[in-house]
């Protein structure tokens, strides 16, 4: 009996920590999303107004609609690009060799750079006058000379994708490499003996076996891409216009530039709901019993 009490007692510190730092703020922001609370009018939360913020977001806010489109476009291109590049690099680095080992060793470096710094570096590289990429693109492909990368609506979003892919591809490559290393060698060799060319081995044997790992990489990258914020701040500032305003950046703008805490909480919770859905899916995939 005493042991039973004790074990719950021992759980208390951890429970308090999670409650105080995660669940409580979440609950507060959740209730705030149903209240009218503009910091410009009052420092204390105002009255409950039901689903009004959510209805506004869904029906009557072009800013929100824009951020949703921008985020969806960003996620789609970013996740696809990251998956394809990570898979391709992992397949190239899979073979044993000195060059491969060296490359694998330095792969983690881009991931060690803070995302805010990635944004600042890319801002310099894509600078219209002195950016090294601007110069390189123009030198290699003359029609691109004089393009103001960060001044064009589509190009700016692509640069944002590029900066994020640059940061994530190496890390995801390592994850895929791990998945490849865990695959049994025999089915691939059997396919070669059966008469398959290398691309057929890849299509018919390797990729199907790698699918669970690719799914995990895809979901994880979607989660991180949905939360895209740092590089928006340091690279594009949401511009030009609002062509690179992601949902996370919109939440920040509503809360700390326009001081509408109630509406910001509502938009934040819409984003959180998407992330939670993905997190549940991810957990199911990871915790699923592997079939022999």
């Amino acid at each position, binding site marked *: 009996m005493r042991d039973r009490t004790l074990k719950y007692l021992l759980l208390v510190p951890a429970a308090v920590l999670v409650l105080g730092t995660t669940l409580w703020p979440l609950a507060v922001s959740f209730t705030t999303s149903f209240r009218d609370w503009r910091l410009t009018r009052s420092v204390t939360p105002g009255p409950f107004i039901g689903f009004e913020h959510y209805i506004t977001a869904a029906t009557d806010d072009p800013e929100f609609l824009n951020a949703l489109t921008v985020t969806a476009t960003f996620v789609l291109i970013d996740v696809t690009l990251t998956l394809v590049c990570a898979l391709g690099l992992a397949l190239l680095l899979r073979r044993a060799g000195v060059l491969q080992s060296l490359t694998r060793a330095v792969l983690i470096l881009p991931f060690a750079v803070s995302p805010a710094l990635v944004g600042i570096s890319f801002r310099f590289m894509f600078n219209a006058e002195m950016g090294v990429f601007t110069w390189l693109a123009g030198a290699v492909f003359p029609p691109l000379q004089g393009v103001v990368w960060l001044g064009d609506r589509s190009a700016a979003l692509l640069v944002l994708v590029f900066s994020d892919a640059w940061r994530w591809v190496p890390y995801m490559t390592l994850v895929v490499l791990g998945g490849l290393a865990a695959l*049994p060698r025999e089915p691939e*060799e059997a396919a070669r*003996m059966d008469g398959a*060319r290398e691309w057929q081995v890849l299509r018919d044997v390797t990729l*199907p076996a790698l699918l669970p790992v690719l799914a995990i990489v895809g979901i994880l990258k979607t989660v991180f891409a949905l939360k895209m914020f740092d590089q928006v701040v340091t690279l594009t500032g949401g511009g030009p216009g609002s062509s690179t305003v992601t949902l996370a950046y919109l939440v920040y703008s509503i809360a700390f530039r326009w001081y509408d805490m109630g509406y910001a909480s509502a938009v934040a919770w819409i984003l959180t709901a998407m992330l939670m859905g993905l997190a549940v899916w991810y957990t199911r995939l990871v915790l699923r019993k592997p079939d022999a």
Partner: protein
Amino acid sequence: MAAIDLHDLTKAWGNFTAVKRQSLAIRDGEFMVLLGPSGCGKTTTMRMIAGLEEPTSGDILIGGQRVNDLAPRERDIAMVFQSYGLYPHMTVADNIGYPMKLRGMGRAEREAAVRAAADKVELGAFLHRKPRELSGGQRQRVALARAIIRRPRAFLMDEPLSNLDAKLRVSTRAEIKHLQHELGVTTVYVTHDQIEAMTLAHRVAVMQGGEIRQLGTPEDIYDQPADLFVAGFIGSPAMNLLAGEIQDGRFTAPGGIAVAVRVAHRGAAVLGIRPEDLRVLPPGQGDVAAAIYTVELTGEATLVTADVGGARLSARADRGFRAGIGSAIGLALDTSRLSIFDPGTTLRIKDAP
């Protein structure tokens, strides 16, 4: 179907040489077993024939054609792997039919071929299952069916029975032997199990340390092992090996062993005799007096381990033989079946003409 010829085949990784300049001629339609302990180079040799491993030097010829530079798919040989190598996401039918799909065979024709191959290995009822829904023995039969669906020039089998339980191993072994006989396809079979080698092979290549120690029929390697390694490796329980010396046509060893031998050799020698060539007799009879160290019943025989002057000899006695540990017996050696080895070179010394 084709003969396979290996010429001075070598495989080295850095300083480690897995296969050392080995040559081997495998005849058309022959069942060749590469036998040896782990790390002897047998699997490496097979993987070089398959094209999954590139030889460091030497040539591989299949049907007289040099295949060193051909990819595995261009060599037209089928392989059965130790862990089956099945495609886990495909059904049994798709697994078996994959080689034909790659060769562009139409769906209807392929289904008929799959059914024929599956029936040959009694898998007809499992075509729609996934490999994970099958037992180990069934999985290995899927791998066999996938190998026989196209008539390849040769089969390669890499320890195909080692993941099966003992009982299944015996029945699958018989099936493999029957299939090979029926199809008449040149087969290279790698194993560390001497029983598999003895029962399956037309000829066995016993390998150790990257070299073929002896090449011969199962009878040859059992009755006339070429060196001490082969003598000790083949047979269970192993051949008795006694160190002694030969003078004037007689082999003598401590413990009063003295037998006439038919070799011209003189000086230090090792005498080898198989347990079944030693007869257990009442005390006072036979060539040697011995004391029983232990007695083990195997069912079909009684294994007697006897102490002879500090050396232990095992003898296969009649299944009805019973005696207490420590009791005295006599042992008779079948002198027509003795092997004599040179302890310096470890090689067998041939009988004098």
